[in-house]
């Protein structure tokens, strides 16, 4: 969108059947929110090799929920089913009331695991931009929530959400199918580079 420029805002968009990447570029800065990486099938074999497009996102989520103790899980696990993205397309800049467990109640290892999950989305960007974004997320970690709905055994159907002041990540199996996953990565303060463009 727009003309590539060293100074004026423009957006690099890449979209496919199960992918929407929006990178807003303003001078040396860029942001990748909102973006929607998704997969179906979420597991397939190619040339004898098993490919899992969102495998890390799945496995790291299950690892974190199982790294929480019983009282932490009680805070993190929602009592209701979440069958789709809450803040999917059409919900730019919206902020839902956060739920789940505050990362401030996690120990250092659990917090690292949470940041590592977030990096699966943030790290799609180049290292420089990803490093800056991860620093921002880390700075706000005390105000960041981790919410989970569904099975806690890897292989089961489970939804999770990471929500902080400048990040929202959702991982949502569709129609109860672990082989069909939609995810979304947002910054409610900076979707489509709103914060960058307004500077």
């Amino acid at each position, binding site marked *: 969108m727009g003309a590539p420029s060293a100074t004026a805002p423009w957006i690099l*968009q890449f979209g*496919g*059947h199960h992918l*929407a990447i929006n990178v807003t570029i303003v001078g040396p800065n860029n942001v990748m929110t909102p973006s929607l990486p998704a997969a179906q099938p979420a597991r397939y074999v190619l040339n004898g090799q098993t490919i899992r497009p969102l495998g890390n996102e799945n496995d790291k989520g299950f690892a974190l929920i199982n790294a929480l103790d019983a009282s932490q899980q009680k805070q993190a696990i929602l009592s209701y089913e979440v069958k789709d993205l809450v803040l999917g397309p*059409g919900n730019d800049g919206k902020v839902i*009331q956060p739920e789940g467990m505050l990362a401030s109640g996690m120990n250092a290892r659990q917090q690292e695991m949470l940041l590592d999950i977030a990096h699966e989305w943030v790290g799609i960007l180049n290292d420089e931009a990803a490093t800056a974004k991860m620093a921002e997320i880390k700075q706000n970690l005390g105000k960041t929530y981790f919410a989970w709905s569904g099975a806690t055994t890897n292989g089961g159907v489970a939804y999770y959400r990471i929500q902080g002041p400048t990040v929202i990540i959702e991982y949502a199996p*569709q129609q109860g199918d672990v082989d*069909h996953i939609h995810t979304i990565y947002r910054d409610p303060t900076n979707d*489509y580079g709103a914060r960058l463009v307004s500077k």
Partner: protein
Amino acid sequence: MITARDSSASRLLAVGSRLLGRSLAVIVILTASTPVGAHRLDEYLQATLVGIETDRVNLEIDLTPGVSIAQQVTGWIDADGDGQLSQSEGLAYANEVLTSLAVTVDRKLVTLTLRDVQLPAVDDMTSGLGTIRLRASAALPEAANGRHELTVVNRHRPQTSIYLSNALVPSDNRIQIVTQLRDRDQHSLTISYDIETTGALRRISWVTGALGLLGMTVVIRGGLSRFRPRWARPV
């Protein structure tokens, strides 16, 4: 194998073009051949966001039919059967949806008023790409300070639907969401929220004002002393 575009991904890309305020020049869309079964098929997604203000509640309801029931949903709206979705048909359907909703505040039923309805193109609907967007609100009785409870129950087309129900963070910082309780399927959402007492706000405002005045006095005195003319400085 039938080719289908993913509604979520393409809608997210389309928004970018609008926000940048330019026409969509070129977008590389790599559309893979994928069975339609890849997407929401036989479910009607009803997603509700609830915005609470001191004097009213706002509902944002997005209705997305799966591709295999989209024709059926189109039929619910297209009352004259001409294959088009007119604005009046959209309004009638939106009001039908609202009558399936019950909103109570402190256990008293409030009346929803439709503010807006946006219908997708029929082709988008029938191919499972369309979302019907309803916006409604209800005036609330003058809110007393303290704890309140708002419940939204959605009984629209439960046989084919799945639900998402969430409170938005209130834009008015006098309102604080305390809890959200839902049934397992999210047909109903009960939000407990506090409205700060006016007295407390007044006290906060008074203290803030006093501190501000003190700060300004210090700054002004400090600033003036720096700019005091040489002849006026003590020797």
